[in-house]
């Protein structure tokens, strides 16, 4: 019975799971596809709902993970093969320095998510006009202080790729409402005399302090919320014309914007189906990993001994990913003690 656990994915869920196991006497091998840890969390400038400094939190978490004894971090490493059963898996890990096989008691999958590239949304001229960006690029622009200056008008578009049977996914990505409000507030803070517009269908603020956060955007930062999904973004000269319907009045409206930010859908990471194939666990119709029982056993995959954590199971915000990381850790601990 090996006392080690393999954690796949170095995002916030993976780091939390690894820490919890190591603090409780277990040993962890944390593998990460990229060069360094942090995953999607590292790409953010601020977090909602309290606009905390994301960079500072991520680096602190990574430091504590590196400092904790019992966690072996292998960057640029991928899982090649798995055999054995719960409590006694042999896994082959492939890294630039060669392959390595290990004996582990449990496996935690924390592969994270990927923002969908909205290339199918040609009606938003994404890819044709440099002024139409996804939320990830907006974060980068905010971090590098390249946000539009002067009395620019910025439009945030909800539900790009989510809640869309024709060109995207039918599910709702849960956090776009909150982080669009965050982007609007960041925009207003960076450039007070800019104007921010948000086009929404429904506002889904599903966490503690989220509704107040979005209400502050409306009341304190004067962000104009218009209920109507954006129908078209047209390039006209140097400006972008955003067309939608203000469905609370029933008239089509038009806003001339300097920057359009698309809140694209959260989809499973690339290669999630191959990883599921290697591990031998099921995925749902979209490619997210399938939980054993949605309500009572969210962390168990379809194979015993393999546990799921973070946004590789469904779109989710950071707090839930951390909570799920902890739960997966405790499940793994029951196996490897």
């Amino acid at each position, binding site marked *: 019975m090996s006392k080690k656990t393999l954690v796949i994915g170095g995002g916030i869920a993976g780091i939390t799971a690894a820490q919890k196991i190591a603090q409780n006497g277990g040993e962890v091998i944390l593998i990460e596809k990229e060069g360094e840890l942090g995953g999607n969390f590292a790409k953010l400038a601020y977090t909602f709902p309290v606009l905390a400094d994301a960079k500072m939190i991520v680096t602190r978490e990574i430091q504590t993970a590196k400092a904790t004894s019992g966690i072996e971090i292998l960057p640029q490493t991928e899982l090649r093969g798995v055999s054995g059963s719960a409590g006694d898996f042999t896994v082959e890990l492939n890294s630039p320095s060669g392959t390595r096989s290990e004996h582990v008691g449990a496996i935690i999958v924390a592969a994270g998510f990927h923002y969908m590239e909205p290339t199918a949304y040609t*009606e938003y001229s994404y890819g044709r006009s440099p002024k139409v960006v996804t939320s990830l690029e907006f974060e980068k622009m905010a971090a590098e202080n390249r946000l539009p200056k002067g009395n620019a008008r910025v439009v945030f578009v909800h539900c790009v790729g989510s809640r869309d049977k024709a060109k995207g996914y039918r599910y709702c990505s849960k956090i776009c409402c909150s982080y669009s409000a965050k982007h609007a507030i960041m925009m207003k803070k960076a450039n007070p005399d800019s104007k921010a517009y948000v086009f929404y269908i429904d506002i889904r603020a599903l966490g503690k302090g989220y509704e107040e956060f979005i209400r502050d955007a409306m009341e304190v930062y004067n962000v104009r919320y218009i209920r109507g999904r954006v129908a078209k973004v047209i390039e006209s000269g140097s400006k972008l014309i955003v067309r939608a319907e203000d469905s609370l009045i029933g008239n089509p409206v038009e806003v001339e914007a300097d920057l359009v930010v698309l809140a694209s859908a959260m989809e499973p990471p690339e290669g999630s189906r191959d990883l599921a194939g290697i591990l031998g666990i099921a995925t749902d119709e979209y490619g997210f990993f399938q939980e054993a029982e949605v309500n009572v056993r969210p962390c168990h995959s379809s194979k015993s001994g393999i546990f799921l954590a973070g946004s590789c199971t469904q779109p989710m915000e950071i707090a839930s990913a951390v909570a799920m990381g902890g739960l997966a850790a405790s499940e793994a601990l029951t196996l490897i003690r």
Partner: protein
Amino acid sequence: MPRLDKVAQIPKPEQIFFFKSCVASNKYPGIEACGTESLRILGVEPVESDEQTCCGGFVTFANVAAPTASMPAVARNLSLAEEKNLDTCVVCNGCWTFLNEFGHFMNNNAEVKGSVNMMLNMMGREYKGTSHVFHIAEMYYRLKDDISKHVLRPLKGVKIATHYGCHYLGGGKYSAIDDAQMPTYMEELIDLMGGTVVPYAANRECCGTGFTQIINGKDLSLDHTQRKLDSVQEADPDMLIVQCPYCHSQLDRVQQQLNFRQGVNYQTPVLHIAQLVGMALGLPVSQLAFAAHVSGRERLENVLDRVGR
């Protein structure tokens, strides 16, 4: 971007049934003349038939004819092509949508097909549903390598703006060869023939005919077309390329009507894609039949001088 899998499905036949459109034949003969001649040059022999009547879709969707009257009419027209077992090539977005829409409708609805065939058997015809319907712009895009081989009048220095038309891309959301919001296959054809593409803001807007609005709600139709023409005039192209004779008729004639009613001065010539390809392939000027055009005639003459008579 064009959906290349869909383009690959279009065969390169020796013969094709050329479906004549009503507005093209009676208002802009250049479309029909250049369409048939250019297909012949590109190695596809167009076969026409006097039995072929109108697609019947206009009278149906304008609620002048009962819907049950249009499916047999479409089936009858397609059965003409099936007798010679050819695919069908249409020059008009409207014909393409009705032949496709009702054609597919009958293919996956057996009793309707049965009752339609019952009517057609009375005339000794039978609708099997084997003839595929292609738009002439799809054929040009499919044969674009042959076009580049046969270009005799390269359109150097000619500023060309495009207008795709709604029924082909909007109605054919899943069956057209390009997506509905950012189509580029016409731009590629124009680059191929040496012209320079001129983008303008209202590129993907409707031409304003509104199918029957030009007749029933004329003020709405003129209002919308004026907005489109203003946006075209900003880009000031040498010519505006359309893909449907009905858009052609609307954009061409409404310019004159707006000049008359409001004293503005819209002078942009409007050409069908078939006429543009005909011009590039070096067809005689008489066959291009620019005499049938209403507005922008001097500019068209000056383009012809530049490109070579």
